[in-house]
């Protein structure tokens, strides 16, 4: 990373190894759109959609974008001849907790121009919906399913909107949310009871081949149905 450490570190007087709390924050800077052609083009073309941008970790540009027109902008980034972000490396979620909005983070890379860009869309907790980009990048299929599974973000027009890592009938919510306790919402006793009572045959039915359909809802009523999470004797914070 010797070649990477110059641009963003200019502001840090203490040198690259400083890590004490009082001198922190030197890593991120606003950067300059001139350094990243895509950022400059985005600011030029969609000035109202770009909330802010930042230069993080020395050389990585992060762009915060409003979620409403995200699909349109991402499509433009993919197809515009000057940018051609043909590789969607990663789609992931990010929850800061304390009621702050959940971020959907796109890591994009252009194999033509060898440029990377990170786009973050902030979704308020009461409107966790964003357009799916599976029609643009097939790679986003499972990645978006994972974000839905672990963060509860709904992706509109996703062709196969199901949970992926957690079981389909998982009733405890979305595990990577900050308000989700490490050991789960249900008590150990309740978890065991559910595990013993489940119909194992259910997982080997022909319906498993059915794809798509409406996103699986984990209703609050269901979570609180048999045993309320707040009343459960788990005791975990």
């Amino acid at each position, binding site marked *: 990373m010797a070649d990477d450490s110059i641009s963003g*570190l200019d502001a840090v007087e203490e040198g690259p190894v400083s890590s004490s709390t009082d001198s922190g924050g030197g890593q991120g800077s606003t950067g300059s759109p001139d350094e990243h052609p895509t950022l400059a083009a985005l600011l030029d073309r969609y000035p109202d959609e770009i909330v802010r941008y930042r230069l*993080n970790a020395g050389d990585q540009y992060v762009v915060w974008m409003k979620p409403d027109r995200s699909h349109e902008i991402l499509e433009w980034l993919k197809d515009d001849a000057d940018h051609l972000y043909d590789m969607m490396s990663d789609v992931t979620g990010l929850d*800061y907790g304390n009621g702050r909005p959940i971020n959907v983070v796109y*890591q994009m890379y252009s194999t033509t121009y060898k440029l990377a860009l990170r786009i973050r869309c902030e979704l308020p907790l009461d409107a966790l919906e964003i357009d799916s980009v599976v029609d643009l990048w097939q790679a986003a299929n499972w990645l978006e399913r994972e974000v839905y599974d*672990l963060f509860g973000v709904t992706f509109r027009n996703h062709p196969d909107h199901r949970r992926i890592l957690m079981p389909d009938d998982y009733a405890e919510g979305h595990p990577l949310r900050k308000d989700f306790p*490490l050991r789960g919402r249900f008590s150990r006793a309740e978890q065991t009871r559910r595990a013993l009572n489940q119909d194992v045959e259910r997982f080997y039915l022909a319906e498993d081949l059915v794809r798509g359909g409406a996103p699986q809802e984990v209703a609050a009523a269901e979570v609180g149905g048999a045993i309320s999470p707040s009343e459960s004797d788990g005791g975990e914070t």
Partner: protein
Amino acid sequence: MSSNTVEFNIGQGREMGVGGAGTPSPLAPFDIPEPDIGTERMLINLGPQHPATHGVLRLVCELDGETVTEIVPHIGYLHSSFEKLGEYRTWNQIVPLTDRMDYLAPLIYNCAYVMSVEKLMGIEVTERCKVVRVILMELDRIFGHLLWLGTTAIDVGAFTPFLYSFQQREKIYQLHEALTGARITTSATRVGGMMADLPKGWLDQLVEFVDEFPKTLGEVHRLLTGNQIHIGRTQGIGSISAADAINYGFTGPNLRAAGVAYDVRKDRPYYDYETYDFEVPIGEHGDCYDRYLCRMEEMTQSVGLLRQAMKRLPGGPINVEDPNISLPSKTDAMSDMESMIHHFKLITEGIPAPEGDCYMAIEASKGELGMYVVAEEGSTKPVRWRVRPPSFVNLSVIPKLATGHLLSDLIMINASLDIVLGEIDR
């Protein structure tokens, strides 16, 4: 080498269309009517406990005769919530979680994670540390590819390459053990350096391996590369075009087999990879055979990289000399008050990070491995630690690759993708 794969034409004529409809029956001269059996579809559940799925992967397949018409993969059986656990751990405490993801190439994951954290914090590791990490990562690239080689060969019925490759893996296991004390769960790296410097005699052991390994690789080449059974099972099976491969998120040897020269080491170089002399093998057809050739050639290239790295390995300290990042030596911590305080602070509090996020992509044995870490001002634990798992995205392509092929080819395609479920499920 990869460009002349078309030379082996055996098996190319075996078109993997649907059901073999329209082919004349060998019984035709006898004029016996063929029974009409092509109507009912069969549902086959493959896995999660099945040796050919290479882990706890479950594939629900719909079959028309022996032809796969639809596949629905189910994953998550090995979900260990590593990313959630990471939010409760300090930066250094996460390292042991990383090698449990890809336990077939643990050192790559150790290195990738700390590289991302170091980039976030702006820590510049020492030259020696860089070269040592390059050595470890290339060693584990061979380590991961060897497991793929052995198990894939078994899936098509060749047992001998398995023995050969696992013999060599054992040598790498011993190198792991000499370096870290553990054979699989290495946890070798720390933020700002390594757990320990290379032990005495380790490099000699590595030289021994590097000298001996190409011979074994040559033997496997002789066993498989021109082997007609192997060619028949792999050529033209599970092919994908270059544009599709990119769009579907393929990375690593799977992408390069389709003819895309994307290698993170070349395109977004880290640790001075641009100064090493190595080639990126590229396939042509994107089928199982090209993936095989790409990985075989990558192992040869990794041997070359190991030789170069050993030659340029500089002396000097391996850890960053900053008491706020690296632990003092045990002797210092026991005898010197200041070192003891640093030791105590580092262990109890951890390393505070600046606000921001960092996505560090490296070339793992399976593809582009991205480590995305997010921190708030001064936090000693990550707000979010995300692993962009290469085999997760690679596996998601399997319905596209295997639909229309025979069930036995599905096994081959699955094997050729080189997945590891520990990392897919995390």
